[in-house]
């Protein structure tokens, strides 16, 4: 009787008799260690599946099957717009996370030498003038956002003019409308974060727009802008929408949008 648990299957002896090379030995030891705790074998099938997916042969597309390339080649670049907007979104996410290290969303008077500057504005000038590659970082963030919005607009036009929204893709079209709207909200909230004159007065228009909605206008203005005049609450809300709320929502929706395209297949030109 020993307190040590017995190795029922004696994996060690099995490994001994296998005459393994050091690499194989380390690999098996790690695998056994992980498997004992996480039961990896139960998920091996998933890995196997993935392995075969990587080596998948793409089936011949409609255009290849009917040799229509000579007719439609000029449409093809337009079919890349969806992935271009996704790539731009990823670039914006990375540069945005880096910018987030240095930006502080406060409307109180800032410590920099500029007259009437807020803390937010001062952190922006610090990013642009004090930090190595800070100006480039902001530039990349802004341009990737612009490019994403442009690509999303053009993507919508492509889908419209090639009739790709028709059955069975209606739901994905509506999801796309939601996504393009959220992209513009993303842009708008980011536009306000600089807290310069343009940002402030664009925010003012936003408040007036929400106030002019019948019945629920005041409630909407309170919810989104944190009041009827712009201030610390507005900036904070824009910041949280821009760096917390929207990234989760938009990323999830993009995943669903692309997942549906994957399931239904690309609507090829006919």
């Amino acid at each position, binding site marked *: 009787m020993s307190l040590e648990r017995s190795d029922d299957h004696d994996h060690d002896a099995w490994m001994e008799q296998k005459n393994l090379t050091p690499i194989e030995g380390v690999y098996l030891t790690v695998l056994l260690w992980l498997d004992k705790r996480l039961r990896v074998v139960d998920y091996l099938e998933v890995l196997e599946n993935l392995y075969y997916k990587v080596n998948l042969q793409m089936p011949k597309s409609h255009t290849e099957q009917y040799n229509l390339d000579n007719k439609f080649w000029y449409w093809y670049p337009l079919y890349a717009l969806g992935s271009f907007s996704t790539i731009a979104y990823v*670039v914006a996410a990375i540069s945005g996370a880096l910018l987030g290290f240095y930006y502080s969303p406060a*409307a109180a008077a800032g410590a920099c030498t*500029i007259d009437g500057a807020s803390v937010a504005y001062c952190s922006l000038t610090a990013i642009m003038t004090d930090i190595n590659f800070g100006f480039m970082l902001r530039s990349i963030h802004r341009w990737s956002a612009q490019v994403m919005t442009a690509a999303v607009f053009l993507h919508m036009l492509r889908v419209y003019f090639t009739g790709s929204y028709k059955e069975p893709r209606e739901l994905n079209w509506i999801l796309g409308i939601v996504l393009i709207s959220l992209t513009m909200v993303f842009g708008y909230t980011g536009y306000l974060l600089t807290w310069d*004159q343009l940002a402030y007065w664009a925010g003012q228009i936003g408040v007036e727009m929400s106030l002019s909605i019948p019945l629920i206008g005041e409630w909407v203005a309170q919810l989104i802008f944190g009041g009827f005049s712009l201030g610390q609450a507005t900036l904070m809300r824009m910041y949280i929408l821009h760096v917390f709320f929207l990234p989760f929502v938009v990323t999830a929706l993009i995943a669903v949008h692309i997942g549906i395209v994957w399931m239904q297949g690309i609507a090829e030109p006919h």
Partner: protein
Amino acid sequence: MTRDNSTDADESSGTDTGEGVAADGTGIVAPDDETPTWGERKERTQGLSRLTYEYFERSRREDQELRNDSSYVERDVLAFPTWPHEMVRNLALTSFFVGLIIFLSATLPPHLGAPANPSQTPAIILPDWYLYWSFGLLKLGPLNPELAVLGGSKLLQDSTYGVLANLVVVGFIAIVPFLNKGSARRPVEQPFWSAVGVFGVVFAAMISTLAIKNLTPTWIDPHLLFDLTFFLPFVAGFITYGILRAMREGYMFDLNRRYYRLRPPR
């Protein structure tokens, strides 16, 4: 190996392992032989779950029949493999595109205006360019009807009217798939809806110009610009419709000629 292990453990540790123990190693003991299987449970359920189950069974059968009837033959190699061919191409395109963004940001750095000042309204108030259309729709006041019933006053405030116009535009775009049905894909196959699309694009461009009219050259009269905003989209739409209809004639002629070459009329 793992299966053996668990059954061994069951047999050695269990005190009263009768026939009731499932042989699949789960160790779940059914109360008696009358206990329904999961399949039977599904069949017996009522209401919505029952309906769902029946529909899934039907669609599965439909799929099976389609598969049986199809003449599709799977070939060994249909096209390029995903790895490396497709992946390398995608990576090249991605890097080129990211490079383009970096090039743009290096050559055209962004602007940062004067700090926010609530007491001084600037001459130019603008959202980012992609919101110009929405900004322009807020300036539709002159189109807001003055109703005679209400003694010449407006039913909606001009600002409410503008916000409503936004909703109407987005709502219309959202229901397009339910208005335009059928299998037509190319613009030439659907001149009307392509014309609607061109109308929309030109309208978006014009309403954006209207939104920034204080930046446009002074030789355009604001009233003329306002009229053009609603006139040009129709012109563009009609021209598109005409061109595509004319193209469709030729297109159909081509298709028919090909068809009759393949199957000459008797």
